[in-house]
């Protein structure tokens, strides 16, 4: 009984960590930045937190704060050069960044433990801390989404020309998106280090990049609920059935292809758009109904 419960709890923890990564990816995509730097930023957060605990005996709060700060700073620095680029070029540059961070992590053995990574990190957090941090992130991003910044993000993503002619600085907002993405990824990386009790460099490579992208594509890029739905579904699917777990790549691959072709806004956003569409139809029908009611006078 307790075994089953512990099993559920570890799955829940995994879902929460993946939600964190998905939220980091979501912020940049919402602002129309095609950055896929989340694994690199999370890796930096994980190493900072791990080293803080191992070498400096930092507690959870201090370590996570350092990880978040490191992620934010990296994101901000990254935004300076990258905000000038767009689309495919941003994507390629951030893929390069993921590779650079990965190979530096493997190279700087003294600091990072090289290919062995960091091990023996004390277990500093559990489910409550994970829940708290995901909830806080969602709350902050939700508030942000309803503020003028969120509206500006949406405008830049949909039509940058319109956005700038309305006085929105695309460069400044995308820099903010980079910084936020870095903060969330850094925090999540720190949580991973303290939860898994280790940092494995290869975890933060191209396959994480693809997986995290899949979360957001499946869930949606506009509503903050999108990445949560995407991460939850894709994390749980392999747990539900053994064949799905053995063919995880096929599941992710098929989800990416089918969703982008037939549900391009993702699950959550598609539902919201469908709701609006019904309201539009109702509104357009209304004046006609009125005329009919008045009848020929």
């Amino acid at each position: 009984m307790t075994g089953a419960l512990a099993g559920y709890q570890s799955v829940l923890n995994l879902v929460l960590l993946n939600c964190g990564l998905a939220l980091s990816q979501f912020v940049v995509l919402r602002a129309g930045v095609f950055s896929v730097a989340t694994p690199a930023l999370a890796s930096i957060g994980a190493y900072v937190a791990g080293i803080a605990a191992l070498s400096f005996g930092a507690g959870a709060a201090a370590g996570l704060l350092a990880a978040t700060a490191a992620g934010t700073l990296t994101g901000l620095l990254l935004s300076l050069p990258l905000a000038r680029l767009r689309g495919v070029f941003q994507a390629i540059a951030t893929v390069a960044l993921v590779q650079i961070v990965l190979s530096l992590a493997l190279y700087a053995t003294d600091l990072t433990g090289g290919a062995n990574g960091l091990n023996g990190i004390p277990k500093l957090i559990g489910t409550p801390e994970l829940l708290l941090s995901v909830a806080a992130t969602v709350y902050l991003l939700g508030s942000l989404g309803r503020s003028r910044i969120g509206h500006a993000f949406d405008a830049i993503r949909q039509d940058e020309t319109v956005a700038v002619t309305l006085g929105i600085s695309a460069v400044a907002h995308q820099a903010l998106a980079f910084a936020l993405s870095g903060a969330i990824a850094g925090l999540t990386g720190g949580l991973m280090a303290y939860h898994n009790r280790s940092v494995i460099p290869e975890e933060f490579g191209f396959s994480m990049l693809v997986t995290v992208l899949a979360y957001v594509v499946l869930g949606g890029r506009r509503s903050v609920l999108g990445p949560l739905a995407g991460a939850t579904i894709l994390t749980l699917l392999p747990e539900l059935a053994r064949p799905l777990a053995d063919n995880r790549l096929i599941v992710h691959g098929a989800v990416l292809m089918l969703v982008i072709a037939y549900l391009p806004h993702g699950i959550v956003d598609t539902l919201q758009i469908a709701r609006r569409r019904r309201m539009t139809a109702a509104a357009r029908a209304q004046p006609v109904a009125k005329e009919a009611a008045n009848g020929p006078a």
Partner: protein
Amino acid sequence: MIAQQLLNALVVGSVYALFALGFTLIFGVHHILNLAHGAVFMWGAFVGLYAVTLLHAPFIVALLCASLAAGLLSVALDWVAFRPLRSRGAPEFSAIISSIGAGLILMNIAQRVSQTRVMRYPFGTFPIEVYTIFGLRVTLLQLVIIGSVAIIVAALFAYIFYTGFGRQIRAVAINERTASLLGVSPSRVYFQTFFISGALAGAAGVLIGIAFNSVSFLMGEPYMLRAFVVIVLGGLGSIGGAVIAGLLLGLIQTMTIAYVSTALSDAVLFSLLFLILLVRPTGFFGTLRMERRVTRE
């Protein structure tokens, strides 16, 4: 010693060029960043290996089989992953996501087929002969690699720049709609470019497989990532640029490994990519128009 390194650089670089040519061809003509190109390359290596081990085909036959199979696979990829998006006029983001998905599926199938093993060519598939030319030790294999790449690249240039079909491809590259108004059938052009691109990747896969005598379902990813460096350095979409940049990449990588550090070679390569994107995102050899920020222009 340095001459020997230069020879190695030429061998590695020519295979990079071969791989990147197909990648850049698709981007140049159709503006699709095909991230499944690495998986097509890997399947080329698989087919080549199976042709030798299962059918006992001579090496040259295996090379041709692999090119043909990878070419057809690439065409199938276009039908399944990109054509549904084209008919809806989806943005470039969608094509990238869809190709990532297709790549994952192809990798997973290869993993199942090979049972996650690294496969090797049977002893004696390729005669080990060493010649001494101008004091350089040159193996037959190295000569064959350089020779085949030179022939394939020459044939590709002849096809694209001196035939009617090539003219159609170039017309579509400039403007697909105008080209189709002038009587060019876009679907035939898609068939050709994807076939050529896949065939080049397949040939590269076989050459790499036999050069390192190692074939595995994971082999596509590192080449895919390095191809980013090649196509950005050479100018996205530039065929001539890809050849020069491929050779240059071979040189940089060989020199880094020989004189700096093996562990750092990836960090150097990808830092280079990052820097090029910041300094000159359109590359040094191409003249591609690039999507720009909305500013006064």
